[in-house]
């Protein structure tokens, strides 16, 4: 055993010293990477603070780490967000693996360039190997001056390695709420020292000498981490047994239910990563904040019927007022709609009846209300329909609101820390309404899907969110630093610096790109070789139509008429319908297309005022035009209402879910009759959705009888691949980029153009920038996209060449699977943008 001298680190730069806590970048100030110092440099050559080997130097030259012979590793990171500079302004003077002397120049940088082009020059000097240090300077430092004194003693104490094969324990889950911080780590190290074997503690690929307190702390373990103990030497087996027991029991800390912790050992997953489904795209690096609802104490027996009845009444009244206030506050947003729906739930007669029956039996107001809402929510859930199951969540939420008012439980406004990533089993609208969204960076929930409130809210706020994450996420410690990559549906529990920087850079570029696209949204979507593509909007309300026009929308390519009256129990009156269509048509004006899709409902998309029998396979049942032809009065009435708007915009009517030519003929006959009855001498254009493979394959037969086609890629994909796009296991493969789907689009376009008809795409594929080249290349004339994406899709079109798109589209039709198509399009995308940036120089 060799005693190691304290090691002096010399200042790698001249400059002003700052404490790490003050650095305005959570990645560093949280000490996720390691503890150390910050220098605001006044010199431009970064020198080695210690002698050693270059263990890592970033290609972009903004970061380097040096490891000495005793294992002390120091990372220097020049500037904040300098990874974005991609090497500009930095000159590397050393190579990875090279041995360097103390004070040797490692990186030169152009301070003025970096100051002008990056966020900051603040340079981090971090002891990433975890040894404790004392600071030897303050205020101004000169390069080469002693900066810190590192005490490597403990970290390399046990140099007397025992020979022999190491034994490994089974993986176990760390029960300590704050990981192995100083105290439990000290207990563990002390116990390990009692054995002669050389012992290591392993966390994924990292390992630490178990006899070293500092090394254990440097592992930065957290609650729920999966650890293993290994030992080599004669008493290895005894050591492992004793140390595993110690870890499971909490190393001297009281851990919640030891039995549970042991049980968890059995169900270990190598969890550095939790997966879910993307509910709202984006990424964020922040800290875990667990959202927990307090348990409410409800007494069953009431204090007299009259008193309890009054209590319920007061609760309902107060809840109604609160919901009205919330609506006013959130006016015009998706949330306002949700609270309006909640208010309606409070007036639901069956719910109230159920509660009053219980009151009459002498139950308390709280008990009666709770039983009524819970029972109704269960009924919703039992219907096995995702949309209704989401409404059960609404009912539970509104139920809770009234219950708290009856019980006099105050809703404490959450005191959120900065950079919160909220984690919950399920977030309710009431919870999210009181959020200080400036402090929230993202959402992670166990329940919910793409139509859940948290998804809607997150998209409205532009924050990343994932749903459907395993229950394990609920046991993450508050304050743990995590990286949420919603695009990939991943939550990284031990993110590394490179990954955080990559996502941060991507996020910033995204923001910038968005600003530019919105600024240029009114420019036409014309390719560089002069081919115009019509970019229109998918809308479900007048409000969305107006919004689309401000974002450069050139018309409406899909009005989802069933959404206009989604929350009605009764069909809207013909006058009301006509008024709505006319208002939308007027907003667009006579020069723009308005494509109204007739009611597209069915077993999978129920509409309250169109009751229908449950079907065993609603996706293959009475959906879309099939249902409308089954109830022709509904279709007639809708045609009449739509026809009232003729003349205000270029009116198009579109039939959903057409699979047989006879359906088109029948619907056209009804339309002609209604037009004649109204005395119209000019019929609106009539087209069909192409979303069933039979319609795509027979497009040449349909084409003479229609004015246009619009391809619904979501349904076309699930019917072509026979995969439910909401299926938890299949959803990722139900990819519209599959060559089979693209071939059907090609077939449709060819048939339409042969008869002089135009083709639009109104499915989700049109809203994907990556798909734009292939769709244009296949000859699609119109892209109808979700409103916020109009600027993006228009900007994408403007970057393309029609001739190139045609070539790439031909190639893609010959590929084998969706992944290859995506890969080819990504490469093409990269190449196009490169050539366009060359042109600009």
């Amino acid at each position, binding site marked *: 055993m060799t005693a190691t001298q304290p090691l002096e680190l010399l200042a790698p730069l001249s400059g002003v010293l700052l404490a790490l806590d003050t650095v305005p970048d959570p990645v560093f100030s949280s000490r996720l990477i390691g503890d150390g110092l910050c220098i605001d440099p006044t010199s431009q050559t970064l020198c080695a603070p210690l002698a050693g080997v270059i263990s890592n130097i970033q290609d972009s030259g903004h970061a380097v780490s040096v490891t000495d012979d005793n294992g002390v590793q120091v990372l220097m990171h020049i500037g904040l967000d300098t990874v974005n500079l991609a090497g500009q302004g930095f000159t590397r003077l050393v190579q990875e693996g090279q041995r360097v002397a103390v004070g040797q120049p490692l990186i030169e940088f152009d301070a003025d360039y970096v*100051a002008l082009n990056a966020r900051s020059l603040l340079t981090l000097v971090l002891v990433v190997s975890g040894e404790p240090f004392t600071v030897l300077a303050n205020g101004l430092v000169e390069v080469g001056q002693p900066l810190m004194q590192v005490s490597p003693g403990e970290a390399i104490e046990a140099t007397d390695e025992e020979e022999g094969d190491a034994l490994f324990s089974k993986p176990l889950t760390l029960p300590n709420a704050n990981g192995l911080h100083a105290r439990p780590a000290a207990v563990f190290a002390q116990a390990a020292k009692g054995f002669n074997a050389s012992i290591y503690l392993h966390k994924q690929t990292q390992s630490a000498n178990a006899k070293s307190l500092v090394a254990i702390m440097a592992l930065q373990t957290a609650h729920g981490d999966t650890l293993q103990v290994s030992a080599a030497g004669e008493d290895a087996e005894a050591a492992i047994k004793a140390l595993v027991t110690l870890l499971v029991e909490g190393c001297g800390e009281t851990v919640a239910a030891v039995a549970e912790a042991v049980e968890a050992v059995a169900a270990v997953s190598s969890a550095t990563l939790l997966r879910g489904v993307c509910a709202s795209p984006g990424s964020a690096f922040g800290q875990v904040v667990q959202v927990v609802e307090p348990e409410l104490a409800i007494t069953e027996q009431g204090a007299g019927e009259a008193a309890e009845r009054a209590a319920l009444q007061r609760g309902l009244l107060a809840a109604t007022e609160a919901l009205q206030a919330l609506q006013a506050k959130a006016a015009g947003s998706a949330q306002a709609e949700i609270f309006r729906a909640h208010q309606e739930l409070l007036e639901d007669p069956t719910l109230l009846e159920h509660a009053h029956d219980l009151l009459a039996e002498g139950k308390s107001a709280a008990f009666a209300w709770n039983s009524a809402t819970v029972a109704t929510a269960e009924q919703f859930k039992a219907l096995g329909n995702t949309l209704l199951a989401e409404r059960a969540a609404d009912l539970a939420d509104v139920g809770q609101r009234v219950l708290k008012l009856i019980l006099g439980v105050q809703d404490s406004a959450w005191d959120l820390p900065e950079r919160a990533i909220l984690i919950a089993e399920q977030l309710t609208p009431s919870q999210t309404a009181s959020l200080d969204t400036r402090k929230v960076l993202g959402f992670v929930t166990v329940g919910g899907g793409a139509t859940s409130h948290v998804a809607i809210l997150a998209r409205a706020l532009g924050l990343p969110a994932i749903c459907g994450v395993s229950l394990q996420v609920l046991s993450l410690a508050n304050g743990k630093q995590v990286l949420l990559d919603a695009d990939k549906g991943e939550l990284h529990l031990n993110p590394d610096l490179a990954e955080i920087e990559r996502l941060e850079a991507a996020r910033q570029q995204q923001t910038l790109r968005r600003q530019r696209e919105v600024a240029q949204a009114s420019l036409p979507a014309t390719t560089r070789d002069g081919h115009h593509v019509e970019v229109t909007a998918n809308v479900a309300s007048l409000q969305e139509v107006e919004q689309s026009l401000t974002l450069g929308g050139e018309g409406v390519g899909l009005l989802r008429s069933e959404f206009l009256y989604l929350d009605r129990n009764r069909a809207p009156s013909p006058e009301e319908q006509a008024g709505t269509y006319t208002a939308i048509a007027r907003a667009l004006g006579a020069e723009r297309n308005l494509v109204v899709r007739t009611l597209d409902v069915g077993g999978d998309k129920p509409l309250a005022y169109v009751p229908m029998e449950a079907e065993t396979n609603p996706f293959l049942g009475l959906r879309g035009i099939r249902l409308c032809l089954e109830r022709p009065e509904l279709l007639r009435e809708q045609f009449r209402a739509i026809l009232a708007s003729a003349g205000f915009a270029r009116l198009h009517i579109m039939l959903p879910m057409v699979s047989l030519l006879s359906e088109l003929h029948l619907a056209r006959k009804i339309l002609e009759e209604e037009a004649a009855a109204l005395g119209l001498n000019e019929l609106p254009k009539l087209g069909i959705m192409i979303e069933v493979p039979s319609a795509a394959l027979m497009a040449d037969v349909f084409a003479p009888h229609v004015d246009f086609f619009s391809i619904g890629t979501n349904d076309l994909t699930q019917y072509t691949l026979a995969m439910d796009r909401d299926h938890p296991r299949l959803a990722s493969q139900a990819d519209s980029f599959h060559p089979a789907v693209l071939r059907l689009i090609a077939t449709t376009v060819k048939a339409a153009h042969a008869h002089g008809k135009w083709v639009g795409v109104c499915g989700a594929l049109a809203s994907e920038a990556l798909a734009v080249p292939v769709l244009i290349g296949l000859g699609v004339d119109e892209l109808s996209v979700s409103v916020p994406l109009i600027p993006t899709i228009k900007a994408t079109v403007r970057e393309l060449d029609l001739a190139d798109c045609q070539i790439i589209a031909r190639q893609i039709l010959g590929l084998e699977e969706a992944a290859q198509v995506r890969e080819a399009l990504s490469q093409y995308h990269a190449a196009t*943008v490169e050539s366009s940036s060359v042109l600009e120089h």
Partner: protein
Amino acid sequence: MFEKLQRAFWKALTPDLIAETVAAPVQNELSADVLSALGGEGNIKSQQHVALTRVRVQLQDVAELDAAALKAAGVPGVMVLGGGVVHLLTGLNSV
């Protein structure tokens, strides 16, 4: 490649990447003492808050800069670069 283009736009849009510092008022950011240590207002061609902690000034004549006076005026660090460019390290709280 695509990133390069983005970066070009980024640069064109804002010389400093942080929105709040772009919006920060440029005028009168330097105290009278600092101005005189830099050789007076007349010696300053331009000034700009950059990189969170710095004021970047361009001087007509760098020789007129008085480092000791700057320090006395509360500027802890000064970095003299080529072409009359000087960075005054004013710290994180100066904005």
